[in-house]
C-alpha cells in the first residue's frame, strides 16, 4: 500500500494480490457498479427476446426461438410501424431546425447584455422550467392553451374565434416542439454561455481595432468560438434522433390519437408493455438502439474528418 504512488512498477504484484490489497475500494465500488450492470448491461442480453416468441409465463429461457419473425413488421413495412417511424422523423427534423438553434440565439442575446444583474435575473427565470416534470409542463400548457385555458377564455370574452391547440391533431407536432423549446431552451444556454466566456477578449479588441462592426465581430469571432461545442452537441443530438420524448408524448396521446402521436418509443410501449407483443416491440427497440449508436459513431467520424474533436478522440 505504501508503494502506491512510488516508482516501483505495479506489475511486480500479481493481479490477485493487487485486488486483495484494494479490497476495500472494490467493496466501495460494488453496489454502484452492480446497479449499472444490472439495469444497463443485463437488459442488453434481454434483447434476445427480439428473436424469440416471448411468452411471459414461460420466461426468456423457456420461450421458443422465432428467428427474424419479429423483425418482419419492420422489413415488411407494417403500416403501424411506418406511421410511428414517420412521426418520429417529422419530430426529429422539427427539433433539429427549431429546438437546436434556439439556445444558441438566446445565449448570444444574454451574452450581449450590458447589465450583469439583468442577465442573472433573466437566467434564473429562464432555467426554471427545466426542473419541472413533463407532467407539470403538459398540465401548464393545457391551462394556457387548452379549450378552457387562458388564451381561449380571453378570445371568448372578446368575441373572437377560439382555437383548441391542445386537441388539434394538425398542430400536434408544432405543439410538442414548442413545449420542448419552452422547457429546455434556457437550460441549454448554460453550455453556450460557458463557451462564450472562454473566448479571448483580445480577439474582440483586435477585431475592433481592425474596424469590425459588432455584426462582423459576431460573425468572425463569436461564432467560430462556439463552433466546437455546437458540433459536439449536434453529434449527441444525432444519437438521440430516434428518441423523441416518450413522457411528453404518452401524456398527450389520448387527446389527438395515435395517427399523429405514435413514435417509435410509444409504439414499443403500447405494443409491448400494454399490448403483450413483447418480441415485436423488443425488435423495434433493438433496431432503434442500434441505429442510434451507428448515427453517433458516423457523426463522430465525420466530425473528425473535418478536423473537429467530436465526442471522443480517434
Amino acid at each position: 500500500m505504501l508503494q502506491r504512488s512510488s516508482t516501483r512498477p505495479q506489475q511486480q504484484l500479481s493481479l490477485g494480490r493487487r485486488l486483495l490489497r484494494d479490497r476495500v475500494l472494490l467493496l466501495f465500488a460494488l453496489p454502484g457498479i452492480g446497479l449499472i450492470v444490472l439495469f444497463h448491461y443485463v437488459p442488453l442480453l434481454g434483447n434476445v427476446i427480439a428473436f424469440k416468441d416471448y411468452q411471459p409465463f414461460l420466461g426468456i429461457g423457456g420461450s421458443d426461438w422465432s428467428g427474424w419473425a419479429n423483425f418482419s413488421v419492420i422489413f415488411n413495412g407494417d403500416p403501424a410501424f411506418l406511421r410511428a417511424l414517420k412521426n418520429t422523423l417529422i419530430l426529429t427534423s422539427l427539433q433539429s431546425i427549431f429546438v437546436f438553434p434556439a439556445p444558441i440565439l438566446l445565449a448570444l442575446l444574454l451574452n450581449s447584455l450590458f447589465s450583469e444583474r439583468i442577465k442573472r435575473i433573466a437566467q434564473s427565470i429562464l432555467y426554471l422550467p427545466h426542473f419541472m416534470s413533463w407532467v407539470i409542463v403538459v398540465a401548464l400548457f393545457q391551462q394556457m392553451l387548452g379549450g378552457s385555458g387562458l388564451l381561449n377564455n380571453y378570445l371568448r370574452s372578446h368575441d373572437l374565434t377560439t382555437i383548441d391547440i391542445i386537441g388539434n391533431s394538425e398542430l400536434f407536432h408544432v405543439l410538442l416542439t414548442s413545449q420542448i423549446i419552452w422547457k429546455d431552451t434556457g437550460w441549454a444556454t448554460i453550455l453556450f454561455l460557458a463557451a462564450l466566456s472562454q473566448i479571448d477578449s483580445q480577439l474582440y479588441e483586435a477585431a475592433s481595432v481592425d474596424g469590425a462592426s459588432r455584426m462582423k465581430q459576431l460573425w468572425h469571432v463569436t461564432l467560430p468560438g462556439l463552433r466546437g461545442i455546437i458540433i459536439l452537441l449536434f453529434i449527441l443530438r444525432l444519437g438521440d434522433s430516434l428518441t423523441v420524448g416518450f413522457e411528453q408524448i404518452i401524456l398527450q396521446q389520448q387527446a389527438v390519437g395515435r395517427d399523429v402521436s405514435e413514435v417509435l418509443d410509444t409504439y414499443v410501449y403500447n405494443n409491448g408493455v400494454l399490448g403483450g407483443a413483447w418480441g415485436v416491440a423488443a425488435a423495434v427497440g433493438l433496431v432503434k438502439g442500434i441505429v442510434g449508436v451507428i448515427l453517433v459513431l458516423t457523426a463522430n467520424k465525420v466530425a473528425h474528418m473535418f478536423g473537429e474533436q467530436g465526442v471522443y478522440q480517434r
Partner: protein
Amino acid sequence: MSRKIVQGVPMPSWPMRIFKGFVLLIFCAVVIIPFVGVISTSVAPNKQINEAGGLVLLPESINFAAYESLFAGGVVTRALFVSIFVTIVGTLLSLTVSCLLAYALSRPGFSAGRPILLVVLFSMLFSPGIIPVYLTVKGVGLLDSIWALIVPTMISAFNVVVLRAFFMNLPNEITESARIDGAGELKTFTYIVLPLSKAVLSVIGLFYAVAYWNAFFSALLYLNDSKLWPLQLVLRTYVINDTQLGSAELGTELLPPQASIQMAILVVSIVPILLVYPFLQRHFAKGVLTGAVKG
C-alpha cells in the same frame, strides 16, 4: 462578460437595446405567467374562478379551501407521502452509492479502476431499450413495489463522473497525510473527503432529488396499484386527463371547485422544486460544466 473589457466598441444603439430588452421580457413573461396563473387560481375565491371560466391571474382574495381538501387524507395526501418517501430515501441511497463508486474510481493506483471506469462511461453511450429494462425490473421482483421508483434509476453514470472529477481535484496531500496517520479508506472517505465535498454533494443530491420527485416514467411502467402512485401519476390522472376528484378520493365532504383543486395539486408538485431552486441555482452551472468537461 468579455464585453466590458472591449475598448473602442460603440455601445449598441438605443433602439437595439430596447429591442433586446423587449425580446428578453417576452421570453421571461412566457415562462412566468403559467406559474403565476396556476398559483393564483389555486387560492382564488370560487366566484372569481367561475367568472373567469378558468385561470385567474390576480386573486381578489385568498382562500386555502382547495389545499385543505387535498390534505384531508385522500388520494393526493397518500401520493404526496409516496413522493416524499421516494425523494428522500432515493436521494440518500443514490448519493451513498454514487459517492462510494466515485471515490473508489478517484483513487490513484486502484487496480480495478480502469475497467470499472470504462463500464461506467460506456453505459452513457447507449440505452438498452424499454422492453428489456421492464423485463429486468420484473425479473428482480420490483414490479408493483415502491422500490421500483428508486432502485432502477438509483445511479446516474453522469453524476458519478462529476463526483469523481471533484474528488480527484482535492489536494492529494490531505489524503496522503490521513493515510500516514493510519486512516483506512473508509475513514479517509468519511472524515476527510466527504466534509471537503459539501458543495458538490449538495448539487448532485439536488439533481437526484429533482429526478426522483419528477419520476413519472418508472411509475407509469412499473406500478399498476394506484395506492402506490406518486404525485406525478395523480397529476396525470386528475389534471391532464381531467378525471373528476370526488369526496371519495379526497376523503372530505367539503368540495371546492374542480379547477382550484386541480391547480392546487399542480402547486403542491411545483412548490418543493421552487423551494430548492435557489440552492440548486447557486451551484449547478459549475456542476454541469465539470461534468461536461471531464465527461
